[in-house]
């Protein structure tokens, strides 16, 4: 019997306090002109805003206090995250470090890595990029060619990473590199390294995206030295870590709130007395959104209890990103306008920005097709 369980979660009272705390914070930020929700996505990089998030204890929430964390629960972190995203906050600078890199360091990092890096992430002053994809290794992650060769007290890395979001502004990158010989098991012999992007030996070049924005980079390592204590986990553990650990990063609110600002502004543009067709589409999206949030919070609750809902989590991303992509495609019919290049300061600009970003929703963090293959495996088809 294939039964998907999305049990209800009971949010702790502290989560409700945090929720209103974040709402107050966002209202103050918007009022002071620090940001405009419709201009942002969760990729928007704003180091000052991230520092203020760190000051308020919104980063590294689950980590131990000795590393600058706040020893909060998964559900408390969930509430803060969803409030920041729903509020259109520019969380892009600290997003990767908070969502996955810091967690990996806490779990697999050396004492020195934990002591020197985690407190800075939690303070909102240290940012990370993801170093997985390469020119010839995208969905087929096991094909990575970046190689690390053991030298005295460390490793020397050579190779090229691409689509490295934010690497021109972040402090570190976690690189997946080949450390062992090619074996029958193509998942063996890979290791993850913490790479300090401020050191010589790393070259970061922009790869402009389709609308001319600079988010992606190409990162080239030329015999870049990484000391032994900047290895994550053990040598050869890389594959297990990138697949196992990241499986749980698929079910967060970032997987269905990417077009939430457009939904809001569309409802505003349509007004309080919609015609049948507009009411129908708004209702459909709200039904999808309410269901996705239920699925997503439920997975957060299961993770908190120590369960491993891999298929349930993957389904949130597949259903969630499909929903995200439908939002601009539907409202362009309901609100006749011509999408316009810009920063999202007007409805045509917000629609235009959303259309141009939409292809990424079902590619980033594992393409829709890779994800569906994983779901199929979970269903016993592979």
């Amino acid at each position, binding site marked *: 019997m294939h039964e998907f369980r999305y049990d209800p979660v009971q949010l702790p009272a502290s989560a409700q306090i945090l*929720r209103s705390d974040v709402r107050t914070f966002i209202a103050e930020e918007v009022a002071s002109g620090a940001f405009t929700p419709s201009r942002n996505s969760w990729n928007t990089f704003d180091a000052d805003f991230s520092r203020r998030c760190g000051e308020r204890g919104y980063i590294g929430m689950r980590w131990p206090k000795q590393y600058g964390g706040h020893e909060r629960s998964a559900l408390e972190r969930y509430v803060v995250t969803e409030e920041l995203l729903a509020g259109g906050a520019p969380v892009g600078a600290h997003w990767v470090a908070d969502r996955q890199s810091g967690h990996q360091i806490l779990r697999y990092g050396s004492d020195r890595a934990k002591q020197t890096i985690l407190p800075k992430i939690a303070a909102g002053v240290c940012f990370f990029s993801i170093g997985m994809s390469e020119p010839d290794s995208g969905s087929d992650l096991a094909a990575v060619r970046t190689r690390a060769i053991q030298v005295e007290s460390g490793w020397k890395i050579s190779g090229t990473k691409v689509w490295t979001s934010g690497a021109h502004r972040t402090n570190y990158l976690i690189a997946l590199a080949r450390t062992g010989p090619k074996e029958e098991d193509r998942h063996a012999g890979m290791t993850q390294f913490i790479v300090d992007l401020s050191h010589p030996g790393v070259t970061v070049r922009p790869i402009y995206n389709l609308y001319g924005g600079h988010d992606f980079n190409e990162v080239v390592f030329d015999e870049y030295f990484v000391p032994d204590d900047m290895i994550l986990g053990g040598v050869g553990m890389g594959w297990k870590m990138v697949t196992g650990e990241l499986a749980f990063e698929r079910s967060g609110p970032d997987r269905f709130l990417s077009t939430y600002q457009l*939904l809001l502004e569309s409802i505003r543009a349509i007004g309080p*007395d919609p015609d049948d067709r507009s*009411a*129908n589409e*708004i*209702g459909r999206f709200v*039904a*999808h959104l*309410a269901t996705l949030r239920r699925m997503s919070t439920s997975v957060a609750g299961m993770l908190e209890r120590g369960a491993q809902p891999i298929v349930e989590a993957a389904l949130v991303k597949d259903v969630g990103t499909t929903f995200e992509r439908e939002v601009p495609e539907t409202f362009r019919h309901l609100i006749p306008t011509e999408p316009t290049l810009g920063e999202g300061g007007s409805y045509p600009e917000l629609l235009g920005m959303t259309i141009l970003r939409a292809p990424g929703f079902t590619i980033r963090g594992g393409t829709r097709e890779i994800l569906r293959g994983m779901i199929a495996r979970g269903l016993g088809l592979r």
Partner: protein
Amino acid sequence: MSEIRDDLLKTVDRIFDEHCQKSVRESAEAGEWPAALWQALEEVGVTRAALPEGAGGSGIEFEDAMFALRRSAYHAAPVPLAETMLAGRLLAAAGIAVPEGGLTVAPVQRNDQLKLAKEASGATVSGTAHRVPWGNLCAHAVVVGELDGIGVAGLISIVGAAGSVERNLAGEPRALLRFERAPLIAFAPLEGALSRLETEGALYRSVQMAGALERTLEYALLYANERVQFGRPIAKFQAIQHMLAVLAGHVAAASAAADAAVETSGIAPDEFGVSVGKSRIGEAAGKGAEIAHQVHGAMGYTREHNLHYSTRRLWSWRDEFGNESYWQTRLGRAVAAQGADALWPMLSRL
């Protein structure tokens, strides 16, 4: 899963395995009352499971009663379990004693209106109700309407009252009931009786669709792993894997939406939860059935394979008690009226 739920699952699954064979489904579609199946459900208290304890319930939580209903739909059981639960809850809410046996409700069509009137000997009902589910096979119906501008629920005997009987796509009877000053056995005020019937009916159909979708996915997974073409099970083809992953997404969303709607409807049906549920699950029903059939190829198009017992129910239930458009529009209007800034507080209230 709680211990009670686990016991309940074993009990109802045993009953359905024993009494809901293919032959029972087929003879029910031919018009025969599945007496043994219904009796077995009555004996374990499932038919009264949604009632509050004070109204003759079996001391089962509402959520567990809805779980039993979901399993009945998983098994494509041809019985008026949802209707009996719905009618019973309306009676209980109005403080009227719930009779034994199968129950149904009227009216279930938005254009039908029943006229209730007070007469010297009590109250009567007049008017026509179309497509009353199981109206030809239940002994009693709960009718709702208004008396002096106040919502009222009444109990009426409908033995022999049914006119023409149509069938929904699953072969479930939908009967025409015509009343002319027919005496009510009992009646009592029930606030918002009409809308309560509609919303709670939509809740039960949502729960049923979630159960039928679970079965549909199960059939599709089983078939994909068994059916060999080009020298391997079709489950090994990426195209099939991706279709089934999409189906799984719909089934998962339906499951989550059904649970959420049930949890907030313990006392009375929750407008928001049911609007979300009927909308989302109705959409999943159509899209899910399409994929399941495509995976089954010609085999799923036969009477012989069991898939159609689930998919014909999905194609029927999504249109009963308001289709997706009806609930989406209702929900969309409520959201628009409150304005964009009220949306997030509404979504995040739980």
